């Protein structure tokens, strides 16, 4: 606990706001980044490092002319429309249609846990006697790409309901994870994405965490394909020689809950393309 409080000091939190709720956290993050990048408009944060790196941005804009994630959107649409063996389909599980990415993650009161979109997709599959999809690589990225594309322009609005203390506890767990140093290299997420945002690790400019969740799945040149947010989490964990945790396990879901709250008010713009 002491460590977390110390780390929060980076955000120039006063002792009083260190106890603060999600909205105060979000404001403190935004203030921190806006002080560092005063000329970057708020809505640009959805573009990650390219919001603050003019050279990287040029390359990225060229890539976006022929989006590498396009075939995955098409494959995802096929998945969405194809009936399961029992004749039902995703459409039956998600009657509101494919533009639903902004409804996740949310606090599921009945289950007492953070519900994410990939988890909901697999629940649908399992309920219909289909094999669930893997959470980091493979076809889950197709259906997620399609849903992301259909959800473009929707606004992130994560809620931490006041009437269920377990929701706040999950948010706090995610926040603690974000600020806790781990791995042999002794980094927290905040070491890179708060303390050193805008600086370079080798040639990589570190992006702000506000905007981190708006554009998944992401086509990464390094991966040569699209991958999920939790695949990215494991990557960042591996880089610091920390044990990567289970995709869609409780820790990463709580982390996603916290991280997504920080992006409240931003528009979804997935799928994305990154280096």
């Amino acid at each position: 606990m002491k460590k977390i409080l110390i780390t929060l000091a980076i955000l120039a939190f006063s002792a009083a706001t260190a106890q603060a709720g999600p909205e105060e956290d979000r404001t403190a993050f935004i203030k921190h980044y806006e002080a560092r990048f005063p000329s970057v408009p708020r809505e640009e944060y959805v573009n990650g490092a390219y919001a603050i790196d003019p050279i990287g941005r040029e390359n990225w804009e060229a890539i976006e002319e022929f989006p590498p994630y396009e075939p995955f959107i098409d494959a995802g649409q096929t998945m969405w429309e194809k009936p399961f063996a029992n004749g039902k389909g995703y459409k039956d599980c998600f009657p509101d249609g494919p533009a639903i990415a902004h409804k996740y993650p949310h606090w599921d009161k009945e289950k007492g846990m953070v519900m994410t979109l990939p988890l909901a997709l697999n629940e649908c599959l399992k309920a219909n006697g289909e094999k669930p999809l893997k959470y980091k690589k493979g076809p889950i990225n197709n259906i997620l790409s399609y849903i992301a594309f259909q959800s473009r322009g929707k606004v992130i609005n994560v809620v931490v309901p006041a009437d269920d203390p377990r929701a706040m506890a999950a948010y706090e767990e995610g926040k603690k994870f974000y600020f806790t140093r781990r791995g042999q290299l002794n980094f927290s997420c905040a070491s890179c994405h708060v303390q050193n945002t805008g600086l370079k690790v080798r040639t990589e400019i570190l992006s702000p965490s506000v905007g981190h969740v708006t554009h998944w799945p992401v086509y990464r040149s390094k991966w040569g394909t699209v991958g999920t947010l939790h695949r990215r989490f494991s990557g960042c964990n591996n880089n610091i020689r920390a044990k990567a945790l289970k995709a869609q396990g409780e820790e990463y879901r709580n982390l996603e809950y916290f991280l997504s709250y920080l992006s409240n008010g931003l528009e979804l713009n997935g799928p994305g393309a990154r280096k």
Partner: protein
Amino acid sequence: MKKTIRLVSTLVIITSATWLTGCTGTPTTTEEPKAMAPQVDPAIIAEGKAITMGRTKGNCLACHMIEEGESPGNIGPPLLAMKARYPDKAKLRAQIWDPTAVNPESAMVPFGRMQVLTEDEIDKIVEYIWTL
């Protein structure tokens, strides 16, 4: 195998200490060296350089500009004029061994405390960094 290497490098130190002037090609003089600061074997410095630059070892370039290194990051300050800034080598070593001892918020990796590098590797890095 490791032992042999160590033995060899110890031998190198001894021989080069004896033949230092000849080895480095600096003009031989009959004068006594003014300062008796012990010279460090160039082989140690070269090893230190390799560990400093190696991506799976020190990977110091991830965060520091070093004049002879490519694609440096800039999270930490450039490593320049180290001898002037760290007349006390032990202090330089301490910064590399555990930067969080001085600055708990340091983003720098505690190379010694977290056993990212061995004591021997850190010694060699110090010798190299000190030449910058």
